[in-house]
C-alpha cells in the first residue's frame, strides 16, 4: 500500500521551506575544509566559555569531553540532531523495532527533539487542520490534551480498559464513515490516532500484541496515521516487551515518539521522533524556525553515555531502571490493598510510573483540591485526563516513582480517610 502523506499534512506545514542559512550550513558540514564559508553566523569556537568537562557516572566511570568534543557540544548542530547520536539511535530503533525486517528503513527517518513532548507538539501542528477530528484513547495524557484543546479540532474519544485501547470501540467509531470517505477530500473522516501503548499515562495499562495488530488493521482499513507516544516502552515490567506499532508498520503509517526523560534525564530535554521521511521533514522544518535543534551539549553528553554503554550496556541500564519501578509498583499495590480495599478499585499497571485508582466517590476534583489539603496528600484528579474536564471523575492518578514505601502507606491511609469522609457527608 502506497501512503499518500500529503493527505495528512496541513496547509501551514506544507508551506514551510528550508531556511537558506541552514541549507548552506548543511552544505558546509558535508564539504571539505577547502570550503570558504562566510555564510552562517556561527560564533567563533574560540569565544566559548567552557574548554572541556569531566562527567562521572553512578557506576564510577569517568567520561571526558575533550576540547574537540566540547567545541562541537557548544556549537550549533544540524536540526535533525548531532550526526553521531542520530546514527546510534537509528541503529537502536532498528534493533528494537525491526527484528522481523518489516520496516523499510530507507524511508524511515529519526529526529532528536527537545523532549518527546515537543516532538508530539510539532507533529500535531504539522498534521491537524482546523475542523479535523482526532482520535484519542481516553483517558488521555493531560499534556497532549493541552496541545490539542486550543487547536480548532474535534477530539473523538476511544475507550480503553486494562489492556489499553479497545479496538472494537475504534472500529465502532470509524464505522460512522464509509471506506470511500478516505478518498474524499471534503470528508471529515478522522486521519490521526494518538495512543500511549505501554505503561499508559494516566492508566499504567499496556496494549497486548493482539490488540496492537487489530488496531493496525483498522488503521490500514481507514488509512489512519498512528501517533505512538511511547516514553514507557523500556519501563514495561514483563519481558519480552510487547512489540511496538512501529515494528509492524509495513505501510509507513506510524510516527513513533521515544523519550530519555525516564531513562537518562528529564532535565536534559531529549526525545526522538521516528517515522516516514516526508512527515519528519515537515517537523524538522518547523524546528528550524523555532528551537533550531535540541541542545548540542545535552546531545553530546547523551552520545558519550550511550557510546560508553554500547547497546548491551543500554539494555542493562534500562533493566535496572525497570526493576526499580517494578519494585515501587509492587509496594504501591501492597499499600493500596492494605488501605483502600472496598474504597477503591484498580488494576495492575503493566509498566511505567502510575496507578490509576477508581475511588468510591462521585467526583475526585473537589475532594483533592480542597479536602486533600487538610490531609496533606496530593494526587492528580482524573478529570485532568478527560476531554471535558468539567465532568465529574471518580479517578485519581497516583505516581509511585519517587515515594518511599512508608510514605505510600501514609498517603493511602490518608486517602482512605478522605474517601470515608466523603461517603459520610454524602449520607
Amino acid at each position, binding site marked *: 500500500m502506497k501512503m499518500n502523506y500529503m493527505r495528512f499534512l496541513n496547509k501551514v506545514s506544507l508551506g514551510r521551506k528550508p*531556511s*537558506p*542559512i541552514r541549507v548552506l550550513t548543511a*552544505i558546509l558540514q558535508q564539504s571539505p575544509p577547502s*570550503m*570558504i*564559508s*562566510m*555564510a552562517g*553566523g*556561527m*560564533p*567563533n569556537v*574560540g*569565544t566559548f*566559555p*567552557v574548554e*572541556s*568537562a*569531566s*562527567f*562521572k557516572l553512578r557506576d564510577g566511570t569517568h567520561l571526558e569531553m575533550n576540547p574537540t568534543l566540547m567545541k562541537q*557540544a*557548544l556549537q550549533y548542530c544540524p536540526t535533525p540532531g548531532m550526526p553521531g547520536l542520530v546514527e546510534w539511535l537509528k541503529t537502536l530503533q532498528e534493533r528494537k523495532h525491526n527484528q522481523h525486517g518489516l520496516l523499510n528503513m530507507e524511508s524511515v527517518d529519526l529526529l532528536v527533539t527537545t523532549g518527546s*513532548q515537543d516532538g508530539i*507538539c*510539532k507533529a500535531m501542528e504539522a498534521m491537524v487542520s482546523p475542523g479535523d477530528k482526532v482520535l484519542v484513547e481516553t483517558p488521555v495524557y493531560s499534556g497532549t490534551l*493541552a*496541545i490539542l484543546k*486550543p487547536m480548532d479540532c474535534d477530539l473523538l474519544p476511544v475507550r480503553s480498559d486494562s489492556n489499553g485501547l479497545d479496538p472494537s470501540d475504534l472500529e465502532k467509531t470509524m464505522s460512522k464513515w464509509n471506506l470511500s470517505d478516505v478518498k474524499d477530500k471534503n470528508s471529515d473522516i478522522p486521519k490521526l490516532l494518538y495512543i500511549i501503548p505501554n505503561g499508559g*499515562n494516566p492508566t499504567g495499562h499496556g496494549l497486548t500484541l493482539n490488540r496492537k495488530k487489530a488496531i493496525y488493521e483498522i488503521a490500514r482499513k481507514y488509512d489512519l496515521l498512528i501517533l505512538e507516544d511511547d516514553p514507557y516502552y523500556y519501563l514495561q515490567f514483563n519481558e519480552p516487551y510487547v512489540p511496538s506499532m512501529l515494528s509492524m508498520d509495513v505501510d509507513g503509517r506510524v510516527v513513533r515518539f521515544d523519550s530519555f*526523560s525516564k531513562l*537518562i*534525564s*528529564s*532535565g*536534559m*530535554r531529549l526525545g526522538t521522533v521516528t517515522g516516514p521521511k516526508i512527515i519528519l521533514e515537515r517537523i524538522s522544518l518547523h524546528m*528550524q*524556525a*523555532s*528551537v*533550531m535543534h*535540541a*541542545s*548540542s*551539549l*545535552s546531545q*553530546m553528553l547523551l552520545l558519550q553515555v550511550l557510546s560508553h554503554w554500547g547497546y548491551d550496556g543500554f539494555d542493562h*541500564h534500562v533493566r535496572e531502571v525497570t526493576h526499580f519501578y517494578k519494585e515501587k509498583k509492587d509496594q504501591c499495590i501492597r499499600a493500596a490493598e492494605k488501605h483502600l480495599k472496598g474504597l477503591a478499585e484498580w488494576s495492575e499497571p503493566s509498566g511505567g510510573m*502510575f496507578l490509576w485508582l477508581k475511588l468510591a466517590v462521585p467526583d475526585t476534583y473537589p475532594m483533592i483540591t480542597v479536602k486533600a489539603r487538610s490531609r496533606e*496528600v*496530593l494526587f*492528580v484528579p482524573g478529570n*485532568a485526563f478527560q476531554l471535558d474536564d468539567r465532568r465529574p471523575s471518580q479517578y485519581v492518578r497516583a*505516581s509511585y516513582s*519517587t*515515594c518511599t514505601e512508608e510514605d505510600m502507606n*501514609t*498517603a493511602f491511609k490518608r486517602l482512605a480517610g478522605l474517601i470515608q469522609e466523603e461517603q459520610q457527608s454524602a449520607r
Partner: protein
Amino acid sequence: MSGMDFSPFFSKVAARVVPSPLREFFDALQTDETYIKLAGGLPEPELFPLKSVALTLPDGTNLEISSKDLVAGLQYDATAGRKELIVFLTDLTKRLHDPPTWRTPGSPDAHCIMTSCGAQDGQYKVLDLLLNEGDIILAGDYVYPNVLAVIIPRGCSVQHIHSDEQGIMPDHLEAYLRQWPKPGPGQVTGGKIKAFYCVPNGDNPTGIRYTEARKKALYKLASEYNFLIIEDDAYYFLEQRPLYKSFLSLDVEGRVVRLDTFSKTLAPGFRVGYVTAPHGLYRKLVAVSQTSTQGTSNLCQTIILTLLRKWGIEGFLAHCENIGAYYRRRREACERIAKKHLTGLADWRSPSGGMFLWVRFLGVQDSMPLVMGQLLERKCLMVTGSAFVAGTDARSPYVRISFSLATDRKMEEGFAIIAEELKKIREDLENKEQ
C-alpha cells in the same frame, strides 16, 4: 498607567490557551515538604546515570557543579526556567534596562522573564501567540529568514518598511499605517497589524544600530497605532560601550517583548535564551512552553548559572565586552580585506556591531545566480540578500558575509574569488554593450 489589553493581539488558538489551573495548584504546593506527593510524574533521580560534572574553563580554572545543582539540572523543573537563573537575569535586566513596568510595585503588566531554547524559540513562541491568517508584522527592509519562516507559512505577511543607518524610518512607517484609521481601545490597526520586529543592535543582516531617538519615535507610533514591539537583541551584549537604551527601557505601557540569548555571548549549543514579556503575554508564553519544549535543557541552564555565579554581573559584562572586542577585530580585518579586493565592484556600510558585512554587488540586480552558481561552485559560501526579503520573487543585489568564523586567509581567498566573478560579469556586460 492603565493595563495593556492583550486580547486583540492573541491569535484564535492562543486565546484558547490557558495555563492549567491544576498545575498552578500543584506548583503552589510543591514546595511544601509536609505534603506527601504522589501527584507529579517525576522520574526517580537516583536512576539518572550522571553523578557529577566538572568543567574546565579556557583560563584553566576548574568549576564543579554541586550535586544539589546537578540533581536539579537533570530533573524536570519549572517551565519558565530554573528559579536561581531567573533571579540572576532579573537583576541583570534591572541593571541594564530598568524596565518602567518594574518601577511601580505590583504593576499588573510588570515584565516577567522566561527561558527559551535560544532567542529563536522565544521569537517563534511570541509570534505563534499573535498570528492569525492574514496578520501583518512590520519590519525593516531586510529580515532574518527564520523570522520569515515563522510568519509566511501561517498565511501572514511581513511589511518591509524603509530603513536607514539608524533603523526603520518613522515617516515611512507612519505613511504606511495611515491607510487605516487609528485603532480604538481593544483594537489593533486594520484588525491585523500585530507587531513590529527588529534586531536593534548589529542587525542581522544589515548591521545597523537603532539610536535612542529613533526608538522613541517608533515607540510613539507603536502607542498611537497599538502594535507590540518585538526587540530581538541577540548582539546587544557584544556592542561597543556605552550600550544604547533598549526598547524595554522605554516601555511605560507594557508593549515591548524583549528577546535575549546566550548563543553569541556563551555558546549556541546550550540552546538557552530568555524572553522578557509583559505579564499578560508571559502567562501564555509559559503555557505554550508547557505543551511543547517544557522549558529548555535544565542541565545547560545549570551550567550557565554556575558560570554566571562565578562571574557575577560585572564579570559577565566584562566577558561579553571581550567577545565584542574580538568580533570587532574580525570585522576590521574583514573590511580591510574586502576593501582591498572589492573597491569599485561592491560597496557596504560599516556595521556598528554583530557578525555580518552587508555587501551590495555593483552593477548586479540579483546576487542569487552568482552566489548559488559560480561562487558555490568555487566553494565560496555566503547568503544572498533575497533570503531576507519576503516574497518568492524577491531580488536583491546584496549578500550577507559573515566574519565570525573565517580566518584572514580564507577571507583573502573568498574576496579574491568574488572580485574575479564580479569582474567577469562587468566584462560580459561591457562586451554586450559593444
